Each structure stands twice: as structure tokens, then as C-alpha cells.
């Protein structure tokens, strides 16, 4: 009896999970379907079966070279993530293992910067970039993306580090490990799942960032967000082309997420259940 109930619960839970997953994934699925339609099909109401044309893809590729934007997206998201980790690991270490009275306040303050609307600082940032000659440069944008995502990276790492018993680090210190050795050889290997999932999440966030990447670039450093935006038109319905551009832009990150989902979920739920 108990087994029957458990089985029934399991089935219901599975169905519910599928429904939620489909609901979340549906807009992406419909974008992919629309990208294989002709423009006329695309505006003719809801239809899940496309004619299977590749017309939009060839037009999108002919109109603007995809690979230049793709390469910039990879460099910016991976580069900003490495920079963020270099800054965040020591920061999270100090907050987790030698906290002060103000640590909680600092953490809250860091998070509060995420609550500010980006457009409020558009002009100051733009002027700083202009004066430093960083407009349309990958380095400038990498630093910008790193700064935007830093609060989340520090918070996530801080949560993972708190799960690691301080005694292990103490033991390492007793054995004569320097601070550098302690972080590199003891802490980092133990926090690999956490660091990996933080890294993956940060890459996704940097990949999808559209406000600054569109506003601080023109041609040389423009990533895939600028590529999609160039297909958005105020006059004329080019939904199939826009969908093809969107599919091309999200495909790499979608595939990466798919392959690393175990790692991502493990990292995100790390320490959630005790």
C-alpha cells in the first residue's frame, strides 16, 4: 500500500515536473520552430509544424557574419568569469573563514548594487570608458561584466566555503601551509563542485548580458547580443529571421548547459539539504 502511494506520488511529481519544464522551455522551443518557417508562415498564428526551410539561416548568415560575434561572446564570457573568480575566491575565503563584525553588511551591500537599475549609471560609465579609451574593447567589457556579476559570484562561493569545515584549513596551517598553499591546495580542490557551478552560472549570465554589451560596443567587441539586436526591426515583420538569429545565439550556451546540467544542479543545491 505504502509502495503504491509512493509510486503514485512519484508519477504525479514526474508529470508535474515535465509540465513545468515544458512551460519554461516552450518559448525557446517555439523560437527554434519559428526559425525553420518562412516569414509568411511565421506571422500566420500559432503553428507547431514548420515547413522546414533554412532560408532564414542563410539570410541571417549573409547579412552579418555570425562567427565574429560568437567569438566575442566566448572571449567575453569566459574572460570575465576567470577575472571574477580570481577576485572572488580570496574575497569569499576571507569572509567565510575570518569574518569580522561587518562581513554580513559588506555582503548585503555587495548584493544591493545589483538592485540599482543599470541605466542610472549609463552616462558615468560611458564617460569613464570614453576617457580610458575602452569603448568597443574586449578588455573594457570583460572588466565591466566581471564587476556586474561579482556580487553573485562572491555570494555563491561564500555559501560553498561556509560548508567546508574550518578545522581542515586549520590542520593544513598546523602542517605549515602558507595562505597561498591553503587556498590553492586545500580549499580550492574541496570546493571544486561549487566553483564549477559558479563558473558555469557566471558564463551564462555574461553570455546573456544585453544592456552593457550593446551599449559599450560598436563593431570590434560586439557579442551575440548585439547580433540579435541587429535583427529586431520596428517596421516590418521578420520573425523567422529574428528567431533564426536568436537560435544561433542561444544554441552554444544551451548545449553547454545541457551537458553540464548535473554539475550545475549539484553546485546550486550544494548544502541546501542537510
Amino acid at each position, binding site marked *: 500500500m505504502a509502495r503504491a502511494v509512493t509510486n503514485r506520488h512519484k508519477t504525479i511529481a514526474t508529470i508535474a515536473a515535465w509540465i513545468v519544464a515544458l512551460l519554461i522551455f516552450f518559448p525557446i522551443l517555439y523560437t527554434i520552430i519559428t526559425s525553420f518557417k518562412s516569414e509568411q508562415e511565421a506571422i500566420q498564428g500559432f503553428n507547431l509544424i514548420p515547413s522546414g526551410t533554412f532560408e532564414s539561416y542563410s539570410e541571417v548568415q549573409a547579412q552579418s557574419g555570425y562567427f565574429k560575434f560568437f567569438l566575442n561572446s566566448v572571449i567575453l564570457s569566459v574572460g570575465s568569469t576567470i577575472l571574477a573568480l580570481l577576485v572572488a575566491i580570496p574575497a569569499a575565503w576571507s569572509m567565510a573563514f575570518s569574518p569580522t563584525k561587518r562581513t554580513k553588511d559588506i555582503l548585503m551591500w555587495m548584493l544591493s548594487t545589483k538592485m540599482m537599475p543599470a541605466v542610472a549609471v549609463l552616462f558615468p560609465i560611458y564617460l569613464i570608458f570614453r576617457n580610458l579609451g575602452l569603448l568597443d574593447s574586449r578588455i573594457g567589457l570583460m572588466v565591466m561584466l566581471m564587476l556586474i556579476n561579482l556580487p553573485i559570484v562572491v555570494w555563491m562561493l561564500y555559501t560553498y566555503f561556509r560548508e567546508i569545515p574550518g578545522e581542515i584549513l586549520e590542520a593544513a596551517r598546523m602542517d605549515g601551509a602558507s595562505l597561498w598553499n591553503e587556498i590553492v591546495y586545500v580549499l580550492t580542490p574541496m570546493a571544486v563542485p561549487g566553483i564549477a557551478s559558479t563558473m558555469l552560472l557566471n558564463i551564462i549570465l555574461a553570455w546573456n548580458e544585453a544592456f552593457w554589451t550593446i551599449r559599450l560596443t560598436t563593431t570590434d567587441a560586439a557579442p551575440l547580443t548585439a547580433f540579435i539586436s541587429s535583427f529586431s526591426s520596428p517596421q516590418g*515583420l521578420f520573425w523567422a529571421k529574428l528567431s533564426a538569429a536568436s537560435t544561433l545565439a542561444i544554441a552554444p550556451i544551451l548545449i553547454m548547459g545541457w551537458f553540464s546540467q548535473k554539475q550545475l544542479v549539484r553546485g546550486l543545491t550544494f548544502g541546501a539539504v542537510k
Partner: protein
Amino acid sequence: MKLRTLILGLCSTSALAFAAHAESITIATVNNGDMVRMQKLTDDFTKANPDIQLNWVTLEENVLRERVTTDIATKGGQYDVMTIGTYEVPIWAKQSWLLPLDKLGDDYDAKDIIPAIAGGLSVDGKLYAAPFYGESSFVMYRKDLMEKAGLKMPDAPTWDFIKQAADKMTDRANGVNGVCLRGKAGWGENMAFLTAMSNSFGARWFDENWKPQFDQPEWKKTLQFYVDLMKADGPEGASSNGFNENLALFQQGKCGMWIDATVAASFVSDPKNSTVADKVGYALAPDNGLGKRGNWLWAWSLAIPAGTKKADAAEKFVSWATSKHYAELVASKEGWANVPPGTRSSLYANPEYQKAAPFAKMTLDSINAADPTHPTVKPVPYVGVQFVAIPEFQGLGTTVGQLFSAALAGQSSVDDALKQAQDAATAAMTEGGYIK
């Protein structure tokens, strides 16, 4: 071997020297058919000017407006050529943000530019932007439905006729709405339509002393007519319909009439995209017998920001892209119907163009019927047909657009919307120092 290495070395050094000499200019533009076509045809320009390299930045209209404004106001210098509209040109030229275009070349023939368009892009008689394509608005209607209703669309209809035709064409059972008009809030969306419409009702945004005029009977007549017409014959949820939404409705055969940009003619008459391509007729925007029609005037134009360091190369490009030669180039590669419309009188005198574009005459007549310096019946202190060319207008226009969109949705009455619009406009004008 040594000689070969030496020759190769010399070649690469000279190539490097050449590359260093080549000047690259960055052009910011919007994504529309004509602009995309221009990007494909630039080989013609770079062949004639091998020392100039072109970089393109294509953006959505609102993002483009925000980006070029940021860049020009901070003198960021990211762009050498900008695509801007008739709203920005007079404001930016007055701020000395744009360079006057006085070196467009001997064979450019600036006098050939349609006077109404040139007027909107000039300040103190100097041209500050060269029009790439111009547009007005007109009535697009379904000839078959009009015939079924037993009516004949005149070339120059009145608003009363539009109402009568819309009532007869509306067939809710078959999903046909008599008329589709913009309702989505925004200074470039519903307010472009309503401001142009209000001109034909004799209304104006401000009197000669910048006093807002929403408390005048002309605005009441305009808004009441619009709301009543849309309630009786418009599509469901019209208050969220902009250009693209109405385009989709018209192309799917759900609108008897649609009053919008002349550029839409090429979309609705294209059998690849439209299910009613062979059934569309065109007429001038309606009037009320007051001497002004309810059509607007817009030109996407190429301008050179004052902060550029490559003004000569930029002006060469602007001259090429807006020349008669470019029109001929497009015609030879893609046919006359695809030549950017609405900028040069010579195009409309060309019999081949008249044959290829059935809407050509109507487009020119519509453009000529709009006068940005005298947009409405009574005198006004501003320039602009469907907008007021002052910096405050973007914000104010959108606020008023939201109020009028709410009136269309039935969330407020026409009187309330007008009263709130008057208050908002008075506050904005007082804050801007136009009135005390």
C-alpha cells in the same frame, strides 16, 4: 630564395602601409530592408574609394536612438555616420552636434531633394542630414471589401467617409475589422498617428506662445472621433497595436482599412508575406475640409556627428548613399521597385519607377501634402508634422500617448485623458522654461 623572401617582405610591408593608410568609418543604422540592401551594395563605394573601409552597426530603432544620443552628447566619437530621423535633425543641428553637409560634391544635385523633406532636415537654410528614404502615411484598403460594401474609395477621402466605410466593412463574424489604427502608447507609435490626425482636425500641440492646447475643442473632436471609430470598427485590444501588430492583421486579411506609413505598401503588396497582396488599394490620408490632411512626414537620414575625426570620408559616403547614382545602382541590381523612396523628385519623374511602383504617385502626393513648418491649420511655434521638434517631446509625447491609449482601452474617458494631457504638457513646458 633570398630574393623571394625580400620581395615577399617588401610586398607585405607595402600591404601593411596601405592598410594603415586606409581609413575606416563606422556607420550606425537601423534594421530595415533599404538599409540592409545598402550594406550589400557597398562594394560599389569601396571600389571607387579603396582607402575607405566601412564598419556597420545595426540596431533596433529605440536602442539606436539612445546609443547615438549618448555618444553624441558625450562626444564619444564611436560613429562617423549616424542614421537619424527628422525629429532629431533640427534639435541636434541647433546644439551644434552635427556637421553641415556642404561638401556633397558637384554632381550631387541637392536641389533635387523633395522640398518638404529638405525643409525638415535643414536649419537656417543649411542641410544637416541627407535623406536616405522618406515616408509619409496614407490609407491602405481592401479593394474587394470596399466593393462588397458598395462603396468606392475616393483618391482623397474625408474622415466621415472613412467612418462610413469602416462601419460597412466591419464583419465581426468573419474576423474583419473595418479599420486598424495605432493604439500602442509611444511618441513614435500612437502619437505619430494621432498628432498627424489632429492636424486635419485643426488641433495643435501648442499655440504661438507654447501654451498647451489639449483643452481646446479641436483635440476633443480628434480624440472622440478616434475612440468612437476604434470602438465600433477597430480590432480587439487595439490599445496595444503598433505598426507591426497592424501589419500582421492587415496581411492576414483582418483589416478593411489601415492608415499608416507609406513604407508598409511594399510589405502588404508582397505576395511572399501578404495574403491580400493583390487586393490592396491606396488613397491619401483623410481630411476634414480644413486644408490639412492627417498624414505625417519622416525621413531616415544620414548625418555626420561633430565629434568625428573622419569628416571627409564620412561625407563622401553620405553623398554616395543618397545620390542619384545609388538609386540607379539599386535599380540595376534589384529593380526599380526597390529603390529607396521619398527623397528625390527625379525618381518620381522616372517612367520606369512609376511602372514598377504602383504606389509611387500616392507616396509623392502624400509627402507633398505634409509641411513640417506649417503642420496644422493654425500657426505653431515648432517644426514637425507628427511630432514637436523639441527635446522635451520624447518624454511628453509618450506620457500623452499613454493617456490616450488608456482612453482607447476604456480605462479613462476622453475628457479625463485630455485634462491629464493638458496638465502634463503644462508641467513639462513650465519645467522646460517655455512658459511661466
